[in-house]
């Protein structure tokens, strides 16, 4: 059934290799960011009267910020939105409509290819190094081996869901560009909102209690915070499974929304030029 989509998985993976330079740049920027975050939180904790702020010790905070940075970069990838915007702008979307494949599934596979490549090349080495270093300097208490294995497994599942959720949000934003050509603004808005609400800027525990509760059950928490906290073992097994189930439910809901939106928008499509 999905054999038709194999080439899109492959081209997604190959596309990523074309952006070697971008990855190196990200490493440099990210290292600077982590340094900033370190000193920022250092200042916050030193001036604080308590050792634990909103449930995080200084060590836990640094570990969280480091992991969430890598996870956001590695898992939330793919250029679904930009591909759609480009196809709308130059009219090649017409050619996509006459192929015997689903417009949506095609993007899932190309993002899967892209992300798989990124995880293998970048995610796994980065996570391993971070984990080992933090364990050696005592920032992380390593659990028994089967517990660690379980955490990694649950993280893998929640990261896959985070990727699918993210890609679906991108797809929806892309489809919205059928109506407006303001792709750049929409993309920035989406990135900023998600960065703030998903816990990749600060942990959701820093929001007011009611907002934290709301966000934990929104699709946003499943994008960054929850996968990382699952990996770091801050959630119990039941909690982890609950959040994974929730992400899955949100994914289904968003895909349904995307499907409805596409059906409506594609009737309105006017192909540019020719």
């Amino acid at each position, binding site marked *: 059934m999905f*054999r038709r989509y194999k*080439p899109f998985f492959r081209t997604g993976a190959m596309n990523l290799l074309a952006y070697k330079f971008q990855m190196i740049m990200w490493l440099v920027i990210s290292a600077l960011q982590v340094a900033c975050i370190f000193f920022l939180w250092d200042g916050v904790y030193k001036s604080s009267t308590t050792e634990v702020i909103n449930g995080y010790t200084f060590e836990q905070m640094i570990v969280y910020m480091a992991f969430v940075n890598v996870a956001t970069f590695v898992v939330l990838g793919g250029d679904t939105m930009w591909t759609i915007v480009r196809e709308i702008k130059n009219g090649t979307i017409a*050619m996509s409509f006459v*192929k015997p*494949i689903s417009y949506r599934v095609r993007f899932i596979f190309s993002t899967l290819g892209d992300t798989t490549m990124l995880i293998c090349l970048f995610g796994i080495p980065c996570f391993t190094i971070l984990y080992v270093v933090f364990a050696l300097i005592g920032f992380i208490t390593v659990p028994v081996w089967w517990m660690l294995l379980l955490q990694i497994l649950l993280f893998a599942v929640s990261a896959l869901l985070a990727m699918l959720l993210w890609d679906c949000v991108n797809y929806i934003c892309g489809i919205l560009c059928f109506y407006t050509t303001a792709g750049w603004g929409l993309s920035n808005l989406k990135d900023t909102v998600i960065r703030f609400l998903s816990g990749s800027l600060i942990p959701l525990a820093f929001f007011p209690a009611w907002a934290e509760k709301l966000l934990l059950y929104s699709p946003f928490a499943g994008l960054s915070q929850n996968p990382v906290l699952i990996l770091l073992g801050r959630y119990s097994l039941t909690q982890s499974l609950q959040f994974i189930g929730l992400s899955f439910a949100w994914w289904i809901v968003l895909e349904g929304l995307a499907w409805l939106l596409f059906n409506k928008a594609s009737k309105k*499509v006017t192909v540019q030029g*020719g």
Partner: protein
Amino acid sequence: MIEITNLTKVFKKPIRQQGVLGMLKTLFSTKYEQKVAVNSINLTIGEGEICGYIGSNGAGKSTTIKMMCGILTPTSGKVLIDGIEPYKNRRKVAGKIGVVFGQKTQLWWDIPLIESFKVLKEVYQISDTDYTERMDFMCKTLGIGDFLTQPVRTLSLGQRMRADLAAAWLHNPKILFLDEPTIGLDVLVKQSIRQAIKEMNAKYNTTVILTTHDMQDIADLCSRVVLIEEGNIIYDGPIEEIRHRFGDLRTLTVTLSQQADVDTLPTFDNKVTYVADGAKLQIKFDAEQVALEQMVDFAFHTLHAKDMSISEITIEDVVRNILQEQERGAHNV
């Protein structure tokens, strides 16, 4: 095979005003103007036909083609391809049709041509034997073998168009939609594309729907011509009938040393008409009634022409003639 009933497409365009102030007004205005691109047309095309779909720019050709292949949804009326409405069931129809838009490419820009074909092979789930057979056929007819390993962005327009035709046909569709496949190409490439279309039609019974501005394409390929103007079909029938109705009209343009007096020139039994424009003289005649040789001879020896050129009837001439004829018909009634 293809059935079109009362097909209509209306585009809604926001009314834009000129200037900076006008643009600001447009920002808040919700006024639209309606443009009828295709006006309730009916058309049936059978299997194995090569049908020329012609008309001037903006007549509604491309819009109709886009509705036939499911890219655009009609405002009203419907299209049936093998009993399926393409815009409602894109994926089901996709395997039955192949599309070439002369202005756009469906090939992947940065990868070698052969890789694009391999992607299409997987997308359309083409078996290895079919793939090899069809690639051989296309290397022979379209000569794409010479540049298979080059990235698409390095191909010339002629090469790219041949590659695009090959890509559209790779899954052996029952219907091939070609929207201006010969636009901007030189005579040799045009010929090779026409030859390939003919062979596909003969060997695989592919139905072809072709839009073009080149009368030669129509004359070479099409058994049937559909003429559209301002969204209405104004002629549907065999190409011979157009020929028969309007003859094989030619215009001989000659440059003389001074302006000719049109009234004194011989009319060859009212078969030739003249239009003078300075030193240039247009001589219009029907090549079936007056021999071309005779006119050239006349232009050189009697008129002492310094330069000359001959042009055939164009699509625009045909459209104009048919419209004039209809107008006359309307007056007579």
